[in-house]
């Protein structure tokens, strides 16, 4: 263990990957999404009618938090061009004669266009523009009905008989930072855990020091591994807890379980990732190939764990495959325990899966031992 600590200190690569990179990523993602939801996304307006009614619609649209009117255009072609240039994410089109047509009950039509190659911006603006259009419709209706002498409450009940009241549980602000960072940051930690586990074992073969290492542990592979990886566990666990303190303590992300449960889930995550790393190296005792496999697994985790695009919408074969990724199980534990604060009995399945990841290298340790004794470094 002391020997491993000396190795860790001697190479700056370890310091970078175990501490600096995860902490920098933590800082990066939390400041990037500091606002929770993007504000004042640039949007264009094509107002060919230009009456007080339409100007009012535009002013109201601008008042929405996510939408910010950045420019007025004379026609659709110009607005479309600016969209292609990346200057605006969407535009609202009001054709000539809209106000007159409303007065004359000719049912005019306004339209809005969003650029959905930027999905998040597109959806947010869509929500604002649709609400605005409904409001405009309602406002026009309200005016007409009040002109006929119907009281406002009755008019509202007539215009919108059914109202939907949505409750976004545990994240009512739809905060993207809460939604993404709670899984991205553990994902990056896991990627580093995979790689550092493999890298430290593989370096023994590469530097031809595996004999020395095994002798220190009296040829007991179990003891050798525990001694080698325990310092990693401690350092990564400390980093992970530091990130947790920052997310839930400083940034006040939703946190609905006990501190003990949070520490337990983090510990299980760290150990499971190390278990996975040992497994990979036991199966592929070539440093380069094992690292490649870890990179692949670690990066694909982000997509397949289902925190952006749900697993239920993937192909059935991928749904099965997702079980082989520790991040998937950690994500389920996070949702169940930390975000929703449900009792632990509903999270036993992902916990069991992570425990299996911790134990899974055991049957392969003999193979690893053999590899360490017999294999030479393959570039």
């Amino acid at each position, binding site marked *: 263990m002391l020997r491993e600590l000396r190795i860790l200190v001697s190479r700056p690569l370890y310091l*970078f990957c175990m501490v600096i*990179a995860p902490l920098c990523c933590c800082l990066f993602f939390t*400041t*990037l999404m500091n606002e929770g939801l*993007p504000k004042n996304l640039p949007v264009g307006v094509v107002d060919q009618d230009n009456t007080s009614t339409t100007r009012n619609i535009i002013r109201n649209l601008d008042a929405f938090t996510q939408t910010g009117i950045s420019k007025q255009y004379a026609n659709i072609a110009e607005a*479309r061009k600016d*969209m*292609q*240039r*990346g200057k605006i*994410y969407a535009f609202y089109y009001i054709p000539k004669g809209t106000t007159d047509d*409303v007065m004359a009950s000719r*049912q*005019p039509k*306004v*339209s*809005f266009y*969003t*650029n*959905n*190659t*930027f*999905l998040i*911006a*597109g*959806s947010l603006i869509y929500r604002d523009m*649709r609400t605005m*259009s409904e409001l405009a*419709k309602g406002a026009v209706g309200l005016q007409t009905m009040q002109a006929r002498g119907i009281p406002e409450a*009755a008019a509202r*009940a*007539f215009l919108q*008989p*059914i*109202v*939907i*009241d*949505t409750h976004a*549980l545990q994240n009512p602000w739809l905060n993207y930072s809460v939604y993404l960072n709670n899984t*991205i940051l553990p994902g990056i930690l896991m990627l*580093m855990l995979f*790689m*550092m586990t493999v890298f430290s074992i593989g370096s023994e073969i590469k530097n031809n020091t595996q004999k020395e290492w095994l002798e220190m542990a009296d040829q007991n592979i179990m003891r050798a591994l525990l001694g080698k990886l325990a310092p990693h566990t401690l350092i990564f666990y400390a980093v992970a807890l530091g990130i947790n303190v920052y997310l839930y303590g400083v940034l006040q992300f939703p946190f609905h379980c006990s501190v003990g449960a949070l520490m337990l889930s983090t510990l299980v995550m760290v150990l499971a990732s190390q278990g996975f790393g040992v497994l990979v190296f036991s199966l592929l005792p070539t440093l380069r190939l094992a690292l*490649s496999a870890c*990179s*692949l697994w*670690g990066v*694909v985790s982000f997509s397949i764990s289902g*925190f*952006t695009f749900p697993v239920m*919408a*993937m*192909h059935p074969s991928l749904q099965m495959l997702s079980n082989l990724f520790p991040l998937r199980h950690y*994500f*389920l534990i996070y*949702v*169940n325990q930390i975000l*929703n604060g449900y009792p632990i009995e*509903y999270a036993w399945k992902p916990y069991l899966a992570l425990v299996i990841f911790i134990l899974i290298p055991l049957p392969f340790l003999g193979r690893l031992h053999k590899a360490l004794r017999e294999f030479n470094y393959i*570039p």
Partner: protein
Amino acid sequence: MKENKSLYQHFLRAVSETFLIWRRECVRVFRDQGVLIFFILVPLLYPLLYAFIYTGEVVREVPVVAVDQSHTALSREFLTRTDAAPDLHIIAYASDMEEAKTLMKEQKAYGTILIPSDFSKRLNSGKQATVAAYSDMSGLLYYKAILSVCTDVSLDMNREIQIERLGNTTDEQDNVSTAPLEYEYVPMFNPQNGFASFLIPAVLILIIQQTLLLGIGQINGTAREQHTFHLQLPPGKRNGTFRIILGKSLCYFMVYAIMSTWLLLAVPKIFSLPQIPQIWDLMAFMLPFLLACIFFAMTMSILVFSRESCMPLFVFTSVPLLFISGVSWPGAAIPEIWKILSWIVPSTFGVNGFIRINSMGALLDDVQQEYYALWIQTAVYFFTAACAYYYMIRQSRRLALKQQKEEKGTDS
């Protein structure tokens, strides 16, 4: 005259030496299995896996629980329509909220729709009635599905209720009085709001940059570890950094010209993602992007001291780079400091330019800013790559000499 001739000969020799380095580099790349994985295998297969993950594009049939406390024809009508919508699926009708909560805890449902007991009574007496929708926030797409379906159903039913109350005589009258102002939504460039159409183009560009970083890092890491970097110089020369840079980058460029064609033209076609580029504009744009990426990777390889360390160093950066490029997170909402830092990497401009040319049919003219930025990067990184290689060659020679001396020392 003589002077001129020797200059010309000098030039000829430089060219032939450059091509020698190019040929050697090609041999090196194609003999090194590790580099081939990054240059060929990853760009070939990785996008397929990614596109496969997102191939569903949208989420359908999000499971929800219904709690109908009204038990009337109107409330049943609301729920039937909700269930009929493609995005939601009612898996159970619970008798109370507790039962619904249990189903959500078991992750069998991601949302609950609650219709209160006075729903029909209020509607029939001409008052506003409320339907409550609860959504699990583990995925924003669940929330989006629940919100949009409930809103759509309520708007449809609202219209019908209004028509019933009005008792107009013609359809035309119905239309005008329920909706004095119509509106229409036109989603552009990604009409089905698909996840793959949105994310994959950015991932493709990132794959080019990241595999170049990893591959070149591995090539140079190997040479530095063995102290053989200086042996790559033209035979019998002590310097020749520019020839090395040109020869090597020509090799990488050729490999990536082919890989980019596969990544940027074939992959979107196979998965029928939105693809409307002007082909010459796309090619003109990719030229500085590839060059900038190559020289960027050559510069960054100064951080790689051994063969394998490129992976722990570079792989994780893919995730922040994807976000900083302004696709996952809108560019307009990125804090200024990160925006400026993002100008360092070619992928920021590459992703934005490619998406606009490929998915939005922009012309080179429309991505002018990105295009010039990439050329500036190419120039800057060419220069830094030259410095980095000059340093690495000298360092390698020094270390090799030291090693030789040590060996001699132990011999005698």
